[in-house]
């Protein structure tokens, strides 16, 4: 089965969208360029538009004035799922998490539709050797909660949630659910939810596995909410700066490890070392601190003060423990 195929090409997607617009009304080259800029790569319009206008890709017909173009297709094209896409979906049917997205009837329908399709791979060929052991258990209650949350996110409906706090206290609160976050490392789903205060919305992050009960309120929020702004607010003001020596393949290991963060790396020619600035979410500072400590002396924290002091405090506490033992 071919993974790298032109069927999935970005240019095909752009042209399909242009043809779709051009099937309803004629379309100008400027409109085509707008679509190519939105859905294509940075320089795609420079290739796609001339090919469409010059007739190398004879998919459009000019109108009488020759300024606007209509699609030669009779209707917008709907591409059936390919064998590769079906095989991937078939593999997912073996994953318990697939039940979070479909009803039992829909899952049965999918099984029927994919009856003649072979799975792309055998999931048991993978071993996730370091994931945490207290992963979310996907049972019927979890599934029901997840589906209610997903529906509420889509409909902008607030929900009354009863859940156990980190300290184990049962809380009840009305939230507007906005996003679901998943971590492969700890196998947990978290809900980004907003609650209203006098001066506006505030955000909480709730572990879905701790939710005991959900009630739909039937209350829908119409005002637009910019969730990115909420997550942006928790971004650090100053990045942590670390110096990496290249002992024990440290550069390779650190770069891979921190690749999921936004970062900037410089080579310091005089020392043969590297300086890396990592931008992180303030609410997850301890996690980053632990990650940095794991590298030991091949990574040295240079700043900022608040982070450096935490490292110093732990190292100093360790020194005292070692001496006293």
């Amino acid at each position, binding site marked *: 089965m071919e*993974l790298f195929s032109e069927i999935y090409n970005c240019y095909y997607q752009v042209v399909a969208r242009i043809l779709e617009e051009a099937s309803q009304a004629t379309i100008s080259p400027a409109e085509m360029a707008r679509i190519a800029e939105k859905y294509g790569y940075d320089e795609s319009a420079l290739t796609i538009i001339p090919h469409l206008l010059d007739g190398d890709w004879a998919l459009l017909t000019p109108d009488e004035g020759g300024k606007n173009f209509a699609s030669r297709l009779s209707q917008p094209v709907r591409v059936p799922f390919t064998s590769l896409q079906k095989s991937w979906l078939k593999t997912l049917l073996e994953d318990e998490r697939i039940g979070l997205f479909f009803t039992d009837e829909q899952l049965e329908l999918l099984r029927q539709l994919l009856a003649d399709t072979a799975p792309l791979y055998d999931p048991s060929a993978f071993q996730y050797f370091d994931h945490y052991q*207290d992963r979310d258990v996907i049972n019927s209650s979890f599934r029901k909660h997840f589906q209610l949350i997903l529906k509420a996110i889509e409909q902008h409906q607030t929900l009354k949630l009863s859940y156990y706090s980190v300290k184990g206290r049962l809380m009840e609160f009305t939230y507007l659910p906005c*996003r679901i976050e998943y971590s492969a490392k700890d196998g947990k789903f978290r809900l980004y939810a907003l609650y209203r205060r006098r001066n506006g919305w505030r955000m909480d992050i709730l572990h879905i596995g701790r939710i005991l009960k959900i009630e739909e309120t039937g209350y829908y929020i119409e005002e637009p909410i910019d969730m990115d702004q909420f*997550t942006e607010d928790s971004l650090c003001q100053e990045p942590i700066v670390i110096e990496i020596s290249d002992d024990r393949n440290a550069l390779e290991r650190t770069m891979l*490890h921190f690749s999921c963060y936004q970062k900037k790396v410089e080579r310091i020619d005089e020392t043969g070392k590297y300086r890396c600035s990592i931008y992180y979410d303030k609410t997850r500072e301890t996690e980053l601190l632990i990650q940095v400590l794991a590298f030991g002396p091949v990574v040295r924290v240079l700043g900022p003060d608040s982070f*450096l002091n935490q490292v110093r405090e732990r190292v100093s506490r360790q020194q005292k423990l070692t001496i006293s033992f």
Partner: protein
Amino acid sequence: MAEFNELIKHFNKVRTYVRDFYVYGFKSRMDYPESGRRTYDNERRRIESWFADYIQYDYDSSHKKSVAITMDSNRIDSNPLFNVWKTKSFTNNDIMLHFFLLDLMQDGESRNVDTINDELIERYQVLFEVQTVRNKLMEYEQNGLFMVKKEGRQHVYTAYTNWLTSHPDLYTGLKEAASYFQTAAPFGFIGSTILDSLRCQNDHFRFRHDYLAHTLEDEVLLPLLTAIKEKQQISIQIKHIRSGHINEFECVPLKIRVSTQTGRRYICVRRLADRRLSTYRLDSVQNVSPLKSESDYDRYSAGYEKNNRYTWGVSFGCRREPEQVCMQISLDEMTEGYLINRLNREGRHGQLNRIQPDIYEYTIECWDSAEMIPWIRTFTGRILNFTCSNKQVELRFWHDMKRMQKMYAEDTSETMSLGG
């Protein structure tokens, strides 16, 4: 001079560049001496175009320009590196036939090649070679877009029905499942192509600890998984990460080992030459070729499982007996219960015992205790004692601790210059 083209013919051609620009982000043209100047410039320009929103430029101390692809994987709706999978080059006939054939066949009627070719001329006034049309039909039949059956001496083609036409109620589930699994399952870029087909994007999910570069390994991952499924031997080419030296050998692939904490994926194999279990990072695998079936596959697989019991990470060590590791942790049971939780959930097959109030002992047996050291170090500030049957590992641990104490005890001019 050949015209610049955003599209490429072979995925492998750009794999290293994209990975380097994303993972390292400081390399400049000088770091690719084996590539010609124009090759580097073309690859860099492609990457700048594919990842325009995530490109960061910089100049190093010797004023060499470097290009980095950088983003926080927690703040994006889709892996931008999937873009590489959507850059396969094509011909003018490819794109025209793609749209004409799908449009023509969308009515669900069955047609033979000649009829199709006649209708293409009649409807779209474009003339194609019959063989070109036949090849495209065969290609699309293999890709699952059309089905074919034989009627008399002719092949008759019919388009498969689009699921959303026949089962529109599946739309929401497919959209959400593809949005989630494009990151949470292997070969996520396929999920991304499903979202493209549905003309939608991931609106509701975000991911933590998502190592985006995995997608670049998928081209070698598929033949490895196929060989595991078929219980086959393979010939594998491994590029040594540091020296760049390429080594090719025959082996039996047994398991894909994935680290969710460090972002690395490995293939575990039984090498035929020395009959040993070995693991290699997937990003070092250059090529995989299937060989014959392995009649002893189940025995090798059982051997892997037996050894797996004592594996902390990916190393099977070089001794016959596992090494013993013991760590004592000091904590405040009243206020620091989360540390006990951490030890339990992250400690894999190790044992945790309370040896006295506020002191816990974690013990484990593993093939290669050196692999555990990074995790042990995450408890810096809590470690009362650390011992290991491999004395080299134990000495190194304490030596590193001393280095860290020295490193952070000194008030350096470096920290001062950073305002610290």
